């Protein structure tokens, strides 16, 4: 039986198709989930993709957090289901308080799309097992509100507990505190990051194939625990 990975489509989601493609290329079975449907259709993990859910007019992710599907996702995430939030998905996870902190307007005020080098700082999460500790990867980054902020205490805690999963290298593209590109919850099953691994799964269309590891990691993890 193949492993089913759900990809939520909110109105305004943009990278849902790409996330499903990435799941498929990694060998999983992508399952499209609809924002208005609480049912997760027996998926083993969930990806909240990039985009501008509900237009992101109020704050990124603020409205999506209240969608029916998120009720179940929040519940399942607390019960240990692997959940990955990419870009807008990361924002939704923060707004849902599944992850601490918030994402704010880029310090230079522009939307930025670039190939971004990252260091993988934690390989114990559900989504990073296939990487080597300290591995440097390059994946696209594209956002207008990607500056990660949290109060000093939270930041210290994240660092102390090894919950900074990815850090920006070379340039900090959005003013994120302590160069943080992605974090996880205490259990390591919920991971959020601003860069887009699902855009780096084919040599033809991405800068690298470094992003595939996210999806192979979770598949392995799920097989191991099932």
């Amino acid at each position, binding site marked *: 039986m193949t492993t089913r990975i759900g990809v939520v489509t909110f109105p305004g989601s943009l990278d849902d198709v*790409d996330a499903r*493609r990435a799941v498929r290329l990694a060998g999983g079975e992508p399952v499209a989930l609809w924002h208005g449907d609480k049912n997760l259709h027996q998926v083993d993990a969930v990806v909240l993709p990039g985009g501008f859910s509900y237009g992101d007019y109020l704050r990124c992710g603020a409205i999506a957090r209240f969608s029916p599907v998120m009720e179940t996702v929040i519940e399942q995430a607390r019960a240990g289901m692997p959940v990955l939030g990419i870009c807008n998905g990361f924002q939704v996870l923060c707004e849902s308080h599944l992850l601490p902190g918030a994402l704010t307007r880029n310090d230079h005020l522009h*939307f930025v*799309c670039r190939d971004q080098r990252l260091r993988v700082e934690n390989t114990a999460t559900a989504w990073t097992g296939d990487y080597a500790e300290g591995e440097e990867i390059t994946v*696209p980054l594209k956002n207008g509100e990607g500056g990660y902020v949290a109060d000093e205490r939270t930041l210290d805690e994240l660092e102390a507990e090894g919950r900074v999963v990815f850090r920006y290298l070379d340039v900090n593209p959005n003013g994120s505190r302590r160069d943080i590109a992605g974090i996880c919850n205490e259990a390591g099953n919920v991971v959020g990051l601003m860069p887009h691994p*699902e855009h780096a799964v084919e040599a*033809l*269309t*991405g800068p690298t194939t470094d992003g595939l590891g996210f999806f192979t990691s979770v598949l392995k993890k799920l097989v191991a625990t099932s």
Partner: protein
Amino acid sequence: MTLDTVKHASDTPDVEQPWAELGLKRDEYDRIREILGRRPTGAELAMYSVMWSEHCSYKSSKVHLKQFGEKAPESDALLVGIGENAGVVDVGQGYAVTFKVESHNHPSYIEPYQGAATGIGGIVRDILAMGARPVAVMDPLRFGAPDHPDTKRVLPGVVAGIGGYGNCLGLPNIGGEVVFDPCYQGNPLVNALCVGVMRHEDIHLAKASGTGNKVVLYGARTGGDGIGGVSVLASETFDETGPAKRPAVQVGDPFQEKLLIECTLEIFKEKLVVGIQDLGGAGLSCATSELASAGSGGMRVDLDTVPLRDSTLSPEEILMSESQERMCAIVEPDKVDRFLEICEKWDVIATVIGEVTDGDRLEIYWHGEQIVDVPPRTVAHEGPVYHRPYARPEWQDALQADDANKLPRPESGEELREQVLRLVGSPNQASKAWITDQYDRYVLGNTVLAQPEDSGMIRIDEETGLGVAVATDGNGRYAKLDPYTGAQLALAESYRNVATTGAKPLAVTDCLNFGSPEDPGAMWQFAEACRGLADACQVLGTPVTGGNVSLYNQTGDTAIHPTPVVGVLGVIDDVNRRTPMAFSEEGQMIYLLGDTREELGGSAWSQVIHDHLGGMPPKVDLEREKLLAEILISASRDGMIDAAHDLSDGGLIQALTESCLKGGKGARLIVPDGLDAFVFLFSESAGRAIVSVPRSEELRFTDMCGVRGLPATRIGVVDGDAIEVQGRFSIPLTELREAHESTIPALLSDARA
């Protein structure tokens, strides 16, 4: 105020009407009266005035645009030609592609962010209305002097607007242009192109047929925005000090448009529409009259059923409103329920506002009273046609006589070196990454090539690798020197850009940005450009499938350079075979394809070093362009070249610098025999490209060129970390990069986002 019904209009033939304020001429107003056999009602007057505006009726340009059809080359690829929302091209394997470029110049000057954003929104709906899923956008832009304070207002706003709307829609931006010239100071050009993909059987047309079929308006509510926007913004010269006819600018809602796209595609998939039209300029006036005019019968619309954002709007205003993110569909009665259901799923408001009748009139009612009763063709398709006088401007001869080949040239290697650095660091030649990094090029996961490549390339089919490439080009300086040749050069460059990446050019779209048609000189430029473009399309075998005309781009008596922007669409069987521009393998041989002549008229060198514009633009040899394209395509298909980059403004040194910087590799060059180093580096002769050839392929490649008669000169090798022209100068890549990449950020760093 009493409602001006048809009956009331018949009863009160002598009421004064504000036809002049609405931009109509006396004879146009008289013609409306003649068509109707009475005076028009207020609503009818609104419709006619907006539909007969220059922007909607093409009244000044029509007679010249005709050539694109008349001279159109035979093409098996053309599925839908000029006249529809956009042309449709067969790209094989059952796929069809539609693409079109449009202008949003004047609105973008007034409100850069929203003007540019709604420009993207509008062109995307055009593509959607053809039945296609939009898959990419491009944005050819022109701004005033780079250091002018107003450029700092307009450019960041335009770029943020294009990015804000396009990124939020989830459409990759795969290319465009950024050109600075003082001639665009009060008249920036914001052109937007969209590409869409569909299966052949999904092509939809804008026509209302089938008596009893319902007219469904769906998307955003109608508000008071952009009322009269089309006639006021697009047709008249914009003058800050003029009468206080302050236009209501439209504000875009990309999220609403994203929903509209997904909703519409689902509706197409279930085959629920007979005809469909987007609402753009002239809003409901345009959509209803065009649908009815193209269809078989008439149409009845109950205007009071239109969902409003502002309940105080009058029927005339509702007809004129240019509220964004709306579409109008013709739906069979038994499919209406399902149609509305899909709209509801996507949270899109949809309302039946009327139906197709068996008559031949467009009738519009307001709370049961008839306020419009017109033959739709007279509104939509049979507007006025002008044969405006045109004449070659008096200054043209003097301009052409002011030969750029006579300008003082650099002599020493040191001087050459210094001018190279100035050229590649000049605003027009510098890297545009500061701008294009604000655009999402990855979304949808099918972008194979994007800026700064010669053309953008999108994968259409993941299994087979089928893809399309699109490039846009235009050079107002060339066109100013000679509009006929300038238009051909724009086409030639765009065509060459597509072929450089390995795709076969198939079809053309164009946006013709010119001054006032009431000025015979500007009209001559327009006529010449059309003639040039139509003639060249015939030779290259690429029909014009659609486009857009933007006139009145002038401030007072000063017009912009005539600026035909040409987009070319090409197809590639397997995107894995694409040719990128970067030199990435040391030791590969660099070949220059084509002939280099002493051609500096209109060149970047003459502009940057001498602030000069004069002489003749480079010669066009379309047969040579075809041959070059064939060679580039064959070489890509057979794996003979690893990189290619076309030569255009800035000449060889510009192209070489870009290929070297992109790949992070240097090059050693030898000036070919018989050429002067300066001409070799800076001339802008057309029909040329540089390629890098692996040593193992060199013989095969040069043989192919030899057999087919294309000059191919070995000019150097990919090597080191500098560009060295042997015996003349050497510039480290780091120095070139600094010059090339720091200019635009420095100009715009203190501008407000």
